């Protein structure tokens, strides 16, 4: 029987579903040129869902619902809010996309995908987890290949699909082994089995590796990052922005719950494994970013690098570590969405994506240039933006866990990051257009862009200056994993 707790625990998902139904009913009634209004509907609707969930759907303590399928706690709740916020912003950014903005299906796919992500963040059972991951992924495969007339988009969709299915199959194999050896699919019972010494160490290591493949694909850790640059370039830009933020964060949510809860007793083996992955991911991501000439590829590699930084918090395997991951991801989602938003606003007007095309951008639209500056400095880890605080917390967690070498690798990488982020900003602020007639080539912002970018910019600065409330929420989420 359904209890009121069951209802509360999936309140956001039910509301999102209702929102999708409303969209399905309303959209056919709109004329072709009105259909971009779906973006307003979805963004506004998701905002309402966030508010309603915050008012009525807050978890009180941790509880297992639906027979242990779902864990209703602050950790999942915090991530759900993040995903829905990211999706609302993405909906706004989709509106003025020439080929996607007027298609109701795109918004529907977005909604379907966040239902999956929300469940990923709260799933506590292998079966539920796999279903959630597939629910989140399949709509994204479609969205990545949404522009059928564009070869690159089709290629992106296929590439993402092929890589994704292979990775998730391997992960599923890991799940089935876990079930086979322990006889349970419940993550929290698995932890008990492992603690009782049910599985030998080499076997557990293999299990961890198999599971990690699927999740590493989601988080785009090296060496499972190959899809990222191609998919980001080919997919519609708002989708790429969503992939690099919410989808990646969802992977981290699963990793944190999986490793901190189910594999807690094997921490000694997986922390080192993840530490090495983190070091390689940061280094490869940042080094490859240096030589990019396309801004979306640059952001793709930089987002690979950022996955490496965030992983330091997981490696630390402590309350502060979990908190810092959550905080880092919150700051990163805002920042990277802002960066992608600026890129979209620029390429919508100019149709160009190369870094050198950004020459003179600060004269063409000073406000957009300042927003880009905020985004890139935040990515580079400079105050007073969110990226700085996130990075300091992650590094603090690393030093606390005696992973000083990993923090040093992180620091070296952030220096590389400063180099290529500033080099990009150099084009924006220093270089001129070939004829020096920037006044004749303004970059106007449409209303959805202006709203989305303004909200994100303020968010990035707020997270970086008034960080106590975000931090206490992140701590609340992290503590849920250690009970």
């Amino acid at each position, binding site marked *: 029987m359904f209890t009121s707790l069951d209802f509360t625990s999936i309140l956001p998902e039910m509301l999102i579903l209702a929102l999708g139904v409303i969209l399905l009913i309303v959209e056919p009634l709109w004329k072709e040129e009105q259909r971009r209004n779906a973006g307003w509907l979805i963004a506004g609707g998701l905002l309402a869902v966030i508010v309603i969930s915050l008012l009525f759907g807050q978890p009180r303590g941790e509880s297992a619902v639906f027979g242990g399928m779902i864990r209703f706690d602050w950790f999942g709740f915090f991530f759900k809010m993040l995903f829905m916020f990211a999706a609302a912003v993405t909906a706004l950014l989709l509106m003025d996309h020439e080929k996607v903005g007027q298609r109701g299906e795109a918004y529907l796919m977005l909604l379907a995908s966040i239902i999956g992500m929300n469940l990923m963040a709260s799933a506590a059972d292998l079966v539920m987890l796999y279903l959630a991951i597939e629910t989140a992924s399949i709509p994204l495969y479609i969205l990545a290949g949404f522009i059928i007339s564009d070869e690159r988009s089709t290629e992106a969709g296929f590439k993402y699909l092929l890589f994704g299915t292979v990775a998730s199959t391997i992960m599923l194999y890991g799940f089935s082994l876990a079930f086979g050896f322990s006889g349970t699919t419940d993550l929290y019972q698995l932890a008990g089995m492992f603690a009782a010494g049910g599985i030998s160490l080499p076997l557990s290591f293999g299990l961890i590796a198999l599971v990690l493949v699927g999740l590493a694909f989601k988080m785009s850790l090296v060496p499972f990052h190959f899809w990222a640059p191609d998919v980001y370039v080919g997919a519609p830009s708002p989708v790429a922005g969503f992939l690099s933020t919410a989808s990646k964060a969802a992977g981290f949510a699963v990793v944190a719950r999986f490793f901190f809860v189910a594999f807690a007793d094997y921490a000694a083996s997986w922390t080192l494994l993840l530490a090495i992955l983190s070091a390689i991911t940061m280094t490869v991501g940042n080094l490859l970013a240096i030589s990019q000439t396309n801004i979306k590829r640059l952001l793709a590699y930089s987002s690979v690098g950022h996955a490496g930084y965030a992983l330091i918090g997981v490696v630390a395997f402590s309350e502060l570590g979990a908190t810092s991951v959550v905080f880092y991801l919150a700051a990163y989602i805002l920042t990277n969405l802002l960066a992608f938003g600026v890129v979209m606003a620029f390429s919508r007007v100019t149709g160009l994506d190369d870094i050198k095309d950004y020459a003179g951008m600060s004269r063409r639209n*000073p406000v957009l240039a300042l927003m880009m500056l905020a985004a890139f400095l935040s990515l580079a880890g*400079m105050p007073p933006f969110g990226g700085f605080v996130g990075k*300091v917390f992650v*590094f603090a967690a690393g030093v606390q866990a005696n992973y*000083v070498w990993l*923090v040093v690798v992180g620091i070296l990488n*952030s220096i590389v990051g400063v180099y290529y982020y500033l080099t990009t900003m150099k084009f924006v602020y220093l270089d001129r257009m070939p004829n020096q007639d920037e006044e004749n080539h303004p970059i106007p912002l449409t209303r959805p862009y202006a709203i989305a970018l303004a909200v994100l910019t303020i968010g990035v600065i707020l997270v970086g200056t008034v*960080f106590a409330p975000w*931090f206490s929420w992140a*701590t609340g989420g992290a503590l849920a994993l250690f009970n």
Partner: protein
Amino acid sequence: MNFPILSVITFLPFAAAVIMLLMPANRKTEVRGVALATASLDLLLAGWMYLQYLLGEMTGYQFIEQYDWLPMLGISLKFGVDGMSAPLVLLTGVVMFTGVLISWGNDDPHVMAGIQDRPREFFAFLFLLAGGVFGVFVSLDLFMLFFFYEIAVFPMYLLIAIWGWVKTREYAAMKLTLYLFIGSVIALVGALAMYWTQYQNTGILSFDMIQMESAGFSASFQYAWFLPVFFGFAVLGGIWPFHNWSPDGHVAAPTAVSMFHAGVLMKLGGFAALRVGVMLLPQGAQQWSWLIMTFAGIAVVYGAFIAFVQTDLKYMIGFSSVSHMGLVMLGISTLNHNGLMGAGVQMFSHGIMTALFFAITGMIYDRAHTRQIPELGGMMKALPFTGVGFIIGGLVSMGMPGFSGFIAEFPIFMGVWGRAWLLAVIASISIIITAAYIMVDIRKVFFGALPEKLEGHISPITALDKIAIVFLCSLMVLIGMFPAVMTPMVERGVENILRLLGGA
């Protein structure tokens, strides 16, 4: 002490930067007006704060304010100044004020003086920088110190890359940013290590630096972490062999930014190295002081020699800054009363002096369009104000009695004599070299005949420029004539440092 003067001083520039960015881009005069008004107000507040400290009890940290920032990790916004930092806050106010004055710009198309291109962004970034600098000088919380330290670093990139000297600006801006960023993140790791070690030792989670003074760091911890922390910050202080970014940065930067860079930013490095490195890890400082002393000694002599052979006026001043900042580091490394005293006064004195030098160099370059010393001459007749200003600055630089340079350098050499007399002898060579290049350059640039090429191109400097020069000169003379306006205050700061060193 109800009025939160330090936080107002710190946040005023940030507020002004936001206001300026919200103003329409074509309202150049209004933007400059806001900039000047803010800078004047900040200078008045800083001056008032300084006088309050000087005329008050002069004990320990004053004007303390504390606000929770992130209580869970013990991060707070804690403001406070002591005898070491109060003069530096005043210095920042002075440089900010004069920097705005000389960047005002005029409409004479023959004179490319001041900032004509996008002054709104220029002043906004300059004020972000200034706010960051104030923040570092007044922070008593280690996290907050890093927060403001990084804020002070990144606007430098844009200020130099956008408004700098076309030939080297991209290279110099990137080099400077990377050097400073590397230094600061290395120091950050050290700071995090200190934070967790304090937690292990005392069970207190706090970034409060006064708290950390009694964290009981073990000797081996201090030996290991002192070097990364001290040198991480000292990079910004231009310590040899990590000084390389500094002259390049000076030369490429626009005038006001050069003033900030040499006048204030380099002090940021010296100050943070002292406050975090020496004061929190005193045993580490005692262990390694010989190394700093060696490096600083090399910087003093080497910088002076390199400055001597420069033909570009800005490079000359840039390397003389390396030499003079070497004296600051030398003073710090003595770890005794005289040396630290001198270092404290030298930071202020050198800040004012270099700001003056760069301001004058900028005025000459804007009119003559060259900074090559052999191509200049006769400026005394054409621009008498700059000539007199440069000569006063030169006398300070040489350490002449009656000027602030003497008050600063004499104790440093006394302090070094106490530790290693041979080094004092070697370092004093720099005084002779300095005197030589200053006098030669004054003769070449300001006396003799005006080169024919420049005939008729040298328009007079504006009233605002004159105010800036007179203001800077009078401060240096004031301190030289009446050391009592500064030395007792610095002495209190030094006593605090000595207490920590003695208690180690």
